[in-house]
């Protein structure tokens, strides 16, 4: 029984390591893909191109412009006319345009107030509105608002407020979900495609053992990927802190890998070809990932979606992992995340198991 189980697992692992294309995709997903997401998706204002038209002849306008510097802003570029500036924004060379009209300084001196025209390319909404916020803060420094209150800020868990660490982690968890589903579905559907399915059915082996061994082999591959991604990308490149227990994280990942394998079993049961696997996986995965809070904070969702997010196992996995890495939550206090992943995971795995079991 045990011998047969390991023979089945070994066969799947040999098959996996011999198909270098698959190995390359898995390695890419667990390293470069996570790195690109972490390093590339930038929500903070950074390196913004600024242009200006200054008709005042210097003075106040210079002072304001000198406050726009690296790393948030590039050195402001001067334009001679408003048309040239607009054109440049249209061409996406400049994201923020400042226009100091000729009476800006005069009006400021004479009446104590004035205005600056601001052009924003709000296609990159987050970045341009953060730029707006910076500018408002700069102007606020020059203004006398008359409320002598200063904000003292304490940033918890993520002192530099960098998004890259969180993004990289969230991407890794999404990769685990996606690959868990696709790899598991693939080991079954490849047999259908290659015509070995019938041969497999005719083995004098309990079908349950075949299903279990096949999905277990893919969970092993996923766990290998998790170790690589955590070690090299999260700790090595993004310096993600580990304030909690790393073994708790791996245990949670192991349960979660079975959850996504369960979805994979379902996909395998309804697909005839790898193309269908890809299509159905994406169809199932997208809501699962969107509802999990990986890309949108859950409290910002529509109330109905907030309710729905309770049935996304990825939600518990993300919140659990976040607690382990950043918050340093005690192992004993992680039970709710473990419960969420294990309960939803058992339901999904059992359902997938039954569904594919019917084909045997």
């Amino acid at each position, binding site marked *: 029984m045990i*011998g*047969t189980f390991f*023979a*089945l697992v070994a*066969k799947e692992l*040999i*098959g996996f390591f*011999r*198909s270098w294309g698959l190995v390359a995709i898995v390695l890419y997903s667990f390293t470069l893909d996570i790195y690109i997401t972490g390093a590339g998706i930038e929500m903070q204002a950074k390196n913004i191109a600024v242009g200006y038209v200054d008709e005042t002849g210097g003075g106040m306008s210079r002072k304001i412009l000198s406050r726009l510097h690296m790393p948030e802003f590039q050195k402001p570029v001067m334009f001679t006319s408003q048309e040239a500036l607009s054109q440049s924004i249209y061409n996406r060379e400049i994201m923020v345009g400042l226009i100091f009209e000729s009476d800006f300084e005069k009006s400021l001196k004479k009446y104590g107030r004035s205005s600056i025209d601001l052009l924003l390319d709000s296609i990159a909404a987050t970045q341009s509105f953060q730029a707006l916020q910076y500018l408002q803060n700069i102007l606020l420094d020059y203004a006398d608002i008359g409320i002598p209150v200063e904000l003292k800020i304490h940033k918890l868990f993520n002192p530099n407020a960098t998004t890259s660490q969180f993004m990289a982690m969230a991407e890794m968890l999404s990769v685990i979900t996606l690959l868990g589903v696709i790899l598991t579905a693939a080991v079954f559907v490849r047999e259908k495609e*290659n*015509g*070995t399915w*019938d*041969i497999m*059915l*005719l*083995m*004098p*082996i309990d079908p349950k053992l075949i299903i279990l061994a096949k999905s277990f082999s893919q969970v092993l591959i996923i766990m290998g990927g998790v170790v690589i991604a955590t070690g090299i990308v999260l700790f090595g490149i993004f310096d993600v802190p580990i304030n909690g227990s790393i073994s708790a994280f791996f245990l949670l990942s192991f349960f979660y890998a079975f959850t996504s394998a369960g979805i994979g079993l379902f996909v395998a049961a309804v697909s005839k070809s790898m193309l269908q696997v890809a299509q159905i996986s994406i169809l199932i995965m997208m809501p699962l990932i969107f509802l999990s809070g990986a890309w949108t904070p859950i409290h910002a969702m529509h109330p109905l979606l907030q309710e729905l997010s309770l049935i996304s196992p990825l939600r518990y996995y993300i919140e659990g992992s976040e607690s382990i890495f950043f918050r340093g939550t005690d192992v004993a206090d992680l039970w709710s995340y473990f419960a969420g992943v294990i309960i939803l995971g058992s339901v999904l795995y059992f359902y997938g198991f039954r569904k594919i079991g019917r084909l045997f």
Partner: protein
Amino acid sequence: MAKLEIRDVTVKHRNVTVIKDARLYAEKGEIIGLIGADGAGKSSLMHAVAGVIRFEGEIAFGGRRFGSPREAEKLKPMIGLMPQGIGLVLYKNLTVSEHLSFFSKIRNLKEDASLDRYRKRLLKMAGLERFTDRPAGKLSGGMMQKLSLICTLIHRPSLLVLDEPTTGVDPLSRRELWKILEEIRESEGTITLMSTAYMQEAAKMDRVYLFDSGTIIASGTAEELTETVKEYVYDPVPCKSERCLSTSHYTYSLDPLEALHKKPTLEALFFINALKRGVEIPQIEVSERESEEPIAQVVMEAKGLTKRFGDFVADDHIDMELKSGEILGLLGANGAGKTTFIKMLLGLYPIDEGELTLLGKPIRSAKDRQGLKARIGYVSQHFSLYKDMTVRENLLYFASMHRIDAAKASSRIERYAKELGFESYMDSLPTELPLGINQRFSVAAALLHEPVVLFLDEPTSGVDAIARSQFWQMLKLLKQKWGIAILITTHYMSEAEYCDRVVLLKEGKKVADDSVENLYRKHPGARSFEEIFLHYYEDGR
């Protein structure tokens, strides 16, 4: 100069030469046959002639030459290509008449009375005039091939390139396909190049070219060709030297033998060619089974087995019996219900109606089968084994699935490899094996647990003549030494000769079930099995 001339054409696929220095010519109105196993280079040469792949060398047709697909472009209106595979050029939701008008349109033909007349004539030749409103997906395999052929003829090509148009098609439709070709060559003077898997068709061709692993080994009329090897072919006798080879019906020897000469078939050329080239052909052996298994007298008994897919009845109340020590051939065209029947026996398809008893045990549920799996061997169509594991790894995997202990398994695997002649391929991947080796290795995988019954689904299609005769040799030895029962499906009617008993299926119905001798006795005029089966097909009309 001949109308069509192929001069030293070489085709390479990713640096592997698939056909080398091929030369061929054809005159107006000739039907030229290309004969050989899968992978011998026939399709590649035909694709080169049709101007769809790159090649080295030169092809001249009607006074114009081309050396590349681009240069062939201006000749395309004169060429008609029908690729391999039943119904491959058809669209299953379009009706017969929609197909004809679609193919007229993409060929940019002028819609006039003469085109209309020609289309009517084609429909009539194909016997499809009553089915013009039927979608192609609902036609039988034979009708699909006839429709494909007339769609290829719609622009009156003067060169027709047909890649295995008759493979898997029932004998009657095959005869009708031939009639269309004969008529077209009479009236239009079309040159036809066609490859075929059936040696019997060669007799009707003006000239045949024999292909063996990437070279043309001989050409001429079927009669001329068999004449050249007449002196080497004898009645079956045991062989003593390396320069001699015996199959169950013939002995081929380069040295003179003390035996009666026998009239050779075209297949003899492949054997003689291999002998002359000194190709080592492993002698197949089978030793006694290691385990003693009591075998029931009747291994399988089916009563009224029926399988429906929607409205379509794939198998219609079929009765069949398989005894131990018997090779039962299940014959029929593609779509006759052979594979469906085997899959019902194995439990891969649920049985809709009827009773089945396997190894003395009535089968009512999947549970009844679980215990029997260890005593049944099965080789599926196209010998599907795991492509990413070597031959050895595959065999070890199957052994462990059958819980054979490691030491016993590896000694058994070594023995099979030696006896069935794939020893030198143990560490290759199945995709790297010649088809014939792949075929025997797949059977070895199905024999590891020493089953008492073996089901084989189309194990011989596409395999070369030598490997095929070795394969039948192996089955015969298995039957003798193991007392195993074998059920084998094939669409080669000629292979019925190797079976003890044959069952003929036609459109899901059993039309014949008898021993080989009895069938010959009942049809004294018949020269071959092909002809016997033609009777059954005609009677059913």
